């Protein structure tokens, strides 16, 4: 009997050992992302209010494949919330810019105009971020109207079903992200103006009223407020230097602005590229026409300073509102400063604000790439987790990053080695920021 027991014990042990060994030989199973915990917040329905950044606007247009990579889409995915958005078919609206050649580089507008594909959705979109939207537009639909210059984009997203605020309240979301303020400074800056659309005091007052109204309609909804980025750090502003480098001795030859020679603290906007290619703004001695660049493509140092002051004022107001309302504060401003100064390290790669090569900005030099949205989503997740004791997992950046925000083609010998050739960018900006 004892011998039988010993034999069975030996066989059982051997079987366990073999099973354990075979099991250990197998590849480790993938680990699923942990389920997001809301802490004191609830993510059962998340909605986004914001600008072109939140809309997923990239490379001068809206298109579904980038809209689905916008930070609100990523956050909704992480928390398991329904996400609806005003999908635009290929090749975007306006058609997205395309990188034709790195020689130059050459960037041309797309040729096929996309169209909305789900205008009939019976409910408001959970992503109510509107390219070009101002804080003013949240509660006032005056400028959505035909003839305002922005009616196309508002007719696609707001669909004349009420203001952004009204539609968000109708959704009854439990969590809302609120990202406004960039266009109040970006619009002027991209036209070479240092005068923000609202002073810091005006912005603060309007923000307070807007958030009061939002919370009156959604009293138990938790909020995440985004700070406003310093638009003078984006590649649209920083890529073209205000000088040429003398190949003979490395000295700097100032370009010519509307008021004469530019200083090294002035900025030449990306929209200046066609002028420079025509010799405008380039001194005669350097092979140019000697004619000055138009004021709309130059942001003088004093104007940039004025823009930065406004951004600081806006952000002080946003931080105060976040603190006063118990909202999470997402430091988009700090994120872009890091990208523009030290770079943002992910793995061995330092992503930066460099145009085309930095990995964070799309071909318009203003809006984030898909990876940029992944990083913004993670910044939002960090802020939300910290504020509400939530446990939302980070977005996988390798999943967020895409290889082809644009088409990367082999060079065809196009372009001028001196200046980028970018066509369609000014037109895209005019659609986004019509003069008021």
């Amino acid at each position: 009997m004892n011998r039988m027991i010993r034999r069975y014990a030996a066989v059982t042990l051997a079987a366990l050992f073999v099973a354990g060994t075979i099991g250990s030989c197998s590849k480790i199973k993938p680990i699923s992302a942990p389920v997001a915990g809301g802490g004191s917040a609830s993510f059962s329905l998340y909605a986004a209010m914001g600008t072109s950044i939140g809309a997923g606007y990239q490379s001068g247009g809206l298109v579904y494949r980038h809209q689905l990579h916008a930070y609100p889409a990523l956050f909704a995915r992480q928390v398991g919330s329904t996400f609806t958005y005003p999908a635009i078919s290929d090749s975007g609206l306006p058609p997205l810019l395309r990188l034709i050649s790195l020689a130059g580089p050459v960037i041309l507008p797309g040729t096929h105009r996309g169209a909305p594909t789900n205008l009939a959705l019976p409910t408001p979109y959970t992503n109510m971020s509107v390219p070009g939207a101002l804080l003013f537009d949240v509660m006032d639909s005056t400028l959505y109207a035909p003839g305002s210059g922005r009616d196309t984009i508002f007719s696609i997203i707001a669909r004349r079903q009420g203001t952004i605020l009204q539609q968000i309240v109708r959704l009854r979301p439990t969590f809302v992200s609120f990202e406004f303020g960039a266009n109040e400074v970006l619009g002027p800056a991209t036209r070479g103006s240092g005068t923000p659309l609202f002073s810091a005091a005006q912005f603060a007052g309007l923000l307070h009223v807007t958030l009061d109204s939002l919370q009156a309609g959604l009293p138990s909804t938790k909020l995440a407020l985004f700070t406003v980025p310093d638009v003078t750090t984006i590649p649209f502003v920083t890529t073209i230097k205000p000088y040429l480098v003398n190949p003979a001795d490395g000295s700097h030859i100032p370009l010519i602005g509307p008021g004469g020679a530019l200083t090294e603290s002035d900025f030449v906007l990306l929209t200046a590229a066609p002028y420079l290619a025509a010799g405008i703004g380039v001194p005669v001695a350097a092979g140019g026409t000697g004619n000055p660049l138009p004021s709309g493509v130059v942001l003088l140092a004093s104007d940039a300073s004025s823009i930065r002051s406004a951004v600081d004022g806006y952000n002080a107001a946003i931080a105060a509102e976040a603190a006063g309302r118990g909202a999470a504060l997402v430091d988009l401003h700090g994120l872009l400063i890091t990208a523009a100064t030290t770079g943002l390290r992910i793995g061995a790669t330092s992503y930066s604000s460099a145009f085309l090569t930095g990995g964070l900005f799309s071909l318009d030099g203003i809006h984030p790439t898909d990876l940029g949205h992944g990083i913004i989503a993670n910044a939002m997740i960090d802020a939300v987790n910290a504020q509400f004791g939530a446990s939302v997992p980070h977005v996988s950046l390798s999943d967020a990053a895409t290889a082809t925000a644009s088409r990367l083609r082999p060079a065809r010998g196009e372009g001028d080695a001196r200046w980028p050739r970018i066509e369609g960018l000014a037109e895209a900006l005019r659609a986004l920021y019509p003069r008021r």
Partner: protein
Amino acid sequence: MGRLRTPLVAAVLAAILLATNAQAAGYSIYEQGAAVLGMAGAGTASVHDASAVYFNPAMMTRLEGTQVYLGGSALQPITSLAGEGANPGFGASYEMVRQTFYPPTFYATHRLPRGLAIGVGLNAPFGLGTEWDPATFPGSYLSTKVDLQTLNASACLAYALNEQWSLAGGADVLWAKAKLQNRELIPVPGGGGALVPIADVSLTSGWKPGPGWNAALVFTPNAQWKVGAYYRSKIVVHIDDADVSFAQIPTGDPVLDALLAGELPPAQGVSTVLRFPAMWSVGAAFQPRPAWTVETDFQLHEWKVFSDLPLTFSETPAINTTRIENYGTGWQIRAGAEHRLPAFTYRFGYYFDHSPAPTEAVTPLLPDADRHGVSAGLGFGLGKDKRWTVDAYELVLFAVNRFGVAAASPAEPVEYRFQGKYKTFVNIAGINLGYRW
């Protein structure tokens, strides 16, 4: 003498040609003798073959005549990684390229008059081999291949003070060579942040020596008990002749390729320092019956010496790096038994190996983890007076699944470091052939 020369030459050649790599705690390889490994490596007090040169040189005074012990092991690690966090992300797993390593062993001992004994050995006590498919592994910027090889030559002298006490001391020279490979990647220009590989970076060194020493003792209070201990010093190898190359990978865009061709660093020299830890071991062996021996060992490996891995480039100092490792102290408990029957001997054992690697050093280069090892072995005596011995063992090593975070640079935000859980299993088998004159 002629009969001795042939196996000796063969053993030396085999040791040199097969010196190779594998992985144990940190990057040590304890698979240095089949009989002792049959007892899960518990042999500090009871080793009774020429592998005493490694496991306890003082035991050489208890070996008769002249003995040689030649063999090796085959180690087959299976490692995989399940990604987590933002980099590389949840939901995918990756398997390391499967390889088999063959660390060799050769030992010879000789009893001299007046209680003296001498011994020499050639073995590969350290090594590391990891390889990830660069085309599919998201951590290719950290590592695609590591190949650390060592070859250690030992010479020991032992002295029996009396029938109870023996002491030993010896010198070691450890030759090491290393190969490290990874990939350089950049964001696709004009893309959405995805990376494109632009260069395979390969660092290759020649063999470089480093000195060390060892000391050991054995105490036999009575016929049933033996207590043994050894110390093997740390060894530092300065690699100053390595070469690094940056082989450009075409991206498909000739403009980009032309730009990058001028940006990649030139092939150049690189220097580094390889550090191998000091090792302490103490063991007690007990013979409850004449045919049985049971032993338990406790070992400390001073892995704190593996604090970093500096790489200093001769022409491009801007890319100098120091990979921080900050290993702690590793320890092991080994227990084994041997039952000597008239026809054969069988052995079995178990050991637990506590990893010295902090979470931040658990990386694709070296995904270290706590391990449980279970062994079984057989031994046969052959020929006249059983002068020939054949020992074989099988050891299965189950590493505890281990979370690790790898940074390419200290400037990298913690949340964007490469993280995930590693699973490792190692199947090891070995054989040694002994002969006694």
